[in-house]
């Protein structure tokens, strides 16, 4: 032991491609800046922090764009950190989603009882974790990124600290998240034990050896996937989602339901396509069951919800099922499955953030997220009603909106597999779309056709930041559907770059 310590190994400084890590460093610097502002000015600084946060996210887009224009795949730290087109697309999505969340938060936080600078600092560090996750191709990097994005999110969920529901939200999210992390970490340690490396590419080589699957690999893969199933709130690991979504401040809920879920999927994609790809006999049946169960249960339970946020939580479970579906045939269709899930993530981010933006806008007047409080919205807020209809019907998968194209890609992937299991999953998606339509359309009809409760038709004053958020999300939702090459073009570059390893 001592001999080992005394052994002198020449230290080689790892080569650092500063351009490749520029997005992470920029975010880190701005996160530190928010803290420094807080240290220097205390509460006097809080007026500026939301602007600083939005500037941070926009500035971080610059290196993303230059990296994309450069087009070169960059690999660092022996393959633990990879910047390819897939990573860039996902990073850009996290930044835009984060930007929209900042827009949603600006008035909400400033007008609430807990107007603190930390909110944006935590938000930025969570986004930093997500941006890092997109590049993570190593178990440790994946885990560090996961914790970096989760821990601030736990705190954000319980932001309204004197509100019991918010406490419940944060606590449930925290306990379930930690539990999931523990399971995942156990799975990772088994995989490391089996493969002798934490690099996903090495793990793939080690686990893909032909022959009967060894117990260690099976258990490792299953545990890691289950850990992320919590993160993406797939049935039966979704139980935290409705309570957390309902209790957390609405902008945070939007953040959790979109960015955090997407980060879970990004990690899952990295793991499946780089780490476990050769072991489809293990992960495909598992994902198949998760996907089918998530969409069915999520949709059926969503039917009975009376609170819009809870309904969106359960519909989010169902949507996670749709996003998982292509992964259940990943070995047959390869890139098509990856593209389908990535497309769905992008579109889902736009439409779901939009739906939450509407919830926020309407709640400014009604102070409620009950579905009944949306009745008669058309009478006093026609613009919001039209936007909400766009988001709801997009979520339901009605053409020509983005959600339709996303669902089309998913169906395409499962059918392209030309296997019985793929077609059955396709039928699951089809039938579930119909179930989902029922509750989405019901809200739509209520907004258009019914009378406002109590006959209260004073108009809603929507602040500029919310209007911008709505404009961004609605434009993207419609554009993705009307002209799908917008997301399909990403597909092409995605395929060209592929998942580095």
């Amino acid at each position, binding site marked *: 032991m001592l001999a080992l310590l005394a052994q002198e*190994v*020449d*230290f080689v400084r790892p080569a650092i491609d500063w351009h490749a890590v520029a997005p992470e460093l920029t975010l880190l610097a701005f996160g530190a800046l928010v*803290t420094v502002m807080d*240290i220097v000015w205390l509460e006097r600084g809080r007026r500026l922090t939301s602007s600083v946060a939005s500037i941070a996210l926009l500035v971080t887009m610059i290196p993303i764009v230059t990296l994309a224009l450069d087009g070169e795949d960059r690999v660092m730290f022996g393959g633990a950190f990879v910047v390819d087109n897939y990573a860039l697309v996902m990073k850009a999505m996290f930044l835009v989603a984060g930007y929209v969340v900042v827009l949603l938060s600006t008035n909400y936080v400033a007008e609430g009882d807990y107007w603190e600078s930390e909110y944006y600092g935590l938000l930025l560090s969570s986004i930093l974790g997500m941006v890092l996750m997109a590049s993570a191709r190593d178990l440790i990097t994946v885990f560090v990124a996961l914790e970096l994005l989760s821990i601030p999110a736990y705190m954000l969920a319980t932001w309204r600290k004197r509100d019991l529901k918010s406490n419940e939200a944060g606590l449930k999210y925290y306990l379930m998240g930690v539990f999931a992390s523990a399971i995942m970490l156990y799975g990772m340690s088994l995989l490391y034990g089996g493969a002798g490396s934490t690099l996903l590419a090495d793990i793939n080589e080690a686990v893909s050896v032909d022959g009967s699957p*060894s*117990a260690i690999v099976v258990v490792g893969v299953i545990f890691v996937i289950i850990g992320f199933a919590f993160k993406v709130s797939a049935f039966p690991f979704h139980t935290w989602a409705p309570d957390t979504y309902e209790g957390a401040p609405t902008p945070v809920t939007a953040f959790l339901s979109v960015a955090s879920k997407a980060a879970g999927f990004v990690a899952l994609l990295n793991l499946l396509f780089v780490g476990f790809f050769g072991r489809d006999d293990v992960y495909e049946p598992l994902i198949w069951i998760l996907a089918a169960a998530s969409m069915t249960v999520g949709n059926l339970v969503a039917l009975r919800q009376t609170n819009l946020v809870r309904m969106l939580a359960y519909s989010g479970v169902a949507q996670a099922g749709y996003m998982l579906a292509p992964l259940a045939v990943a070995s047959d269709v390869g890139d098509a499955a990856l593209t389908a899930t990535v497309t769905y993530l992008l579109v889902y981010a736009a439409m779901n953030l939009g739906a939450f933006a509407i919830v926020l806008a309407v709640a400014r007047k009604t102070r409620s997220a009950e579905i009944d409080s949306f009745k008669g919205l058309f009478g006093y807020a026609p613009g919001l009603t039209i936007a909400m209809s766009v988001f709801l019907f997009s979520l339901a998968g009605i053409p020509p909106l983005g959600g339709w194209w996303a669902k089309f890609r998913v169906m395409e992937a499962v059918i392209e597999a030309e296997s019985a299991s793929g077609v059955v999953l396709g039928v699951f998606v089809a039938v579930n779309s119909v179930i989902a339509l029922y509750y989405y359309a019901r809200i739509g009809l209520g907004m258009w056709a019914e009378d406002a409760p109590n006959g209260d038709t004073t108009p809603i004053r929507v602040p500029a930041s919310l209007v911008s958020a709505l404009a961004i999300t609605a434009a993207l939702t419609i554009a993705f559907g009307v002209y799908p090459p917008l997301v399909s073009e990403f597909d092409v570059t995605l395929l060209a770059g592929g998942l580095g390893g």
Partner: protein
Amino acid sequence: MSDFLRSYLTVGIFGLIGVALVGVFLGLGKILRPNKPTLAKTEAYESGVEPTGDMWSQANIRYYVFALLFVMFDVEAVFIFPWATRLEAYGTFGLIEMAIFIFILLLGLLYAWRKGVLKWA
């Protein structure tokens, strides 16, 4: 049975023996010792002071903050000691890296200080 599982079998047997040993000794003690309970014997031992009030008393929340700060700097030490033994090999690069690390920690400490965490009042 694979080699891998066989090695876990060893762990399992080891664990079983451990549990059995504890059980045997405690059981033996239970059988052999005289049993004369008095009120004083059944009380929970608490720093020699007689316990008052409910067992579920709340600790002051400030302890929690101090504990957190302690853990933070404790972990810092875990990083810094090994680094120190290899400083020569790392050279300037290592020095800068550690400076950044300590700077970020320092920021945290400053933050805690500014927010009044270090005051007990």
